[in-house]
């Protein structure tokens, strides 16, 4: 009972956005979670990136100043709240409905 994994899609410019290394402050290992819409949240360094499930980069959120340690893990709550585990024994809870300030 053996299945074979195979690469089924060619690389496209749209999928190139999945190359996370291009984003500043996002260093591995990275945290990941999926929300109810299928959007993919990637956390690393001091940033959280959001992709749609077809690979489109939706947004980037960056902690500034008050966040002194790197993101260890992220998790999405039932009400779209974003839980962020930091290296300083802390959990930050961010309400995703809050409008963040564009840099």
């Amino acid at each position, binding site marked *: *009972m*053996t*299945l*074979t*994994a*195979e*690469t*089924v*899609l060619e690389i496209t410019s749209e*999928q*190139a956005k*999945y*190359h*996370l*290394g*291009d984003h*500043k402050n996002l260093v*591995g*290992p*990275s*945290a*990941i*979670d*999926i929300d109810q819409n*299928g959007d*993919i949240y*990637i956390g690393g360094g001091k*940033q959280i990136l959001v*992709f749609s*499930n077809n*690979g489109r980069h939706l*947004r*980037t*959120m*960056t*902690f*500034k100043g*008050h*966040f002194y340690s790197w993101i*260890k*893990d*992220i*998790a*999405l*709550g*039932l009400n779209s*709240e974003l*839980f962020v*585990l930091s290296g*300083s*024994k*802390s*959990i*930050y*809870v961010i309400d995703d409905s*809050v409008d*963040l*300030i*564009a*840099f």
Partner: protein
Amino acid sequence: MNKSQHLTSISTLLKFLKMDLINRVIDKEAELILPDQIKRYYFFKSGSFEKLWITAGNLCLVEPNSFQYYVLNESELIENTKNSRRRGGYPVFEATESTLFEGIPNKWSNNSFALFNFGRGIDFQPYFVAKSGEIAFNRTDAIMNKKAMQLDLKELLPTEIKMGFSDILAHNIISAGDNNKLYVFASREFKNVIERQVNGKLREIYSEKFICVFNNKGKYVGLIDSIPQDLVYETSIAGTENQYATSPQHQLHYLHTTGNTDNLSNCKSYVTRWH
């Protein structure tokens, strides 16, 4: 300040301005998370947590070094921190007996159980993977009495996979979510020494990567093999039927499994990788 010191100061200032400009350009599309946009913040008095996940309102915090983890629901977290000491205006959480669980069976001492990896498994709670290939975990029905169970891959794998098992290491575990499957990333390395007259001995190591799939009773149900080599070192995993993983190479991988999950021979599985 002499002329040389002036030039040094100006040079330092220019470097700072240049770096600031570069940072602004790179961060052009970023949104800032400011302190007042953080809804709540909890500081834990102790613990060295590495992993966090949430399922059905429960929050799990894993502390792999001590083989312990916390299971909290959000209201419990709020209640426990309401009257606690505060640091910098934020509540300080202290673990209680009811929220703390041991991650390994009592018969395994920390000395004999060399932790290799851990991950979120079936039934919400973490699975701890030993270098020996053994996996320790709690089942939902065992949480109340805090008794841990163990799963030994050596006993569960079919004969053809058991061969050379000493070289097999479980790298990570994927929660199966809705389909109640446990996915274990593993690698099996084949070592081959090739004699070359020009270069002398050249040692080449071949690796085979695969995913073992178990059901929620711990029964082996199938194998997905020929996984791209850089997928096996994934650092995080999420999703249920559609699995996503990030790799240290900053790539996002996508694994999709369809079909009757009780019988993998009827499934179509593939791995897609974006660069």
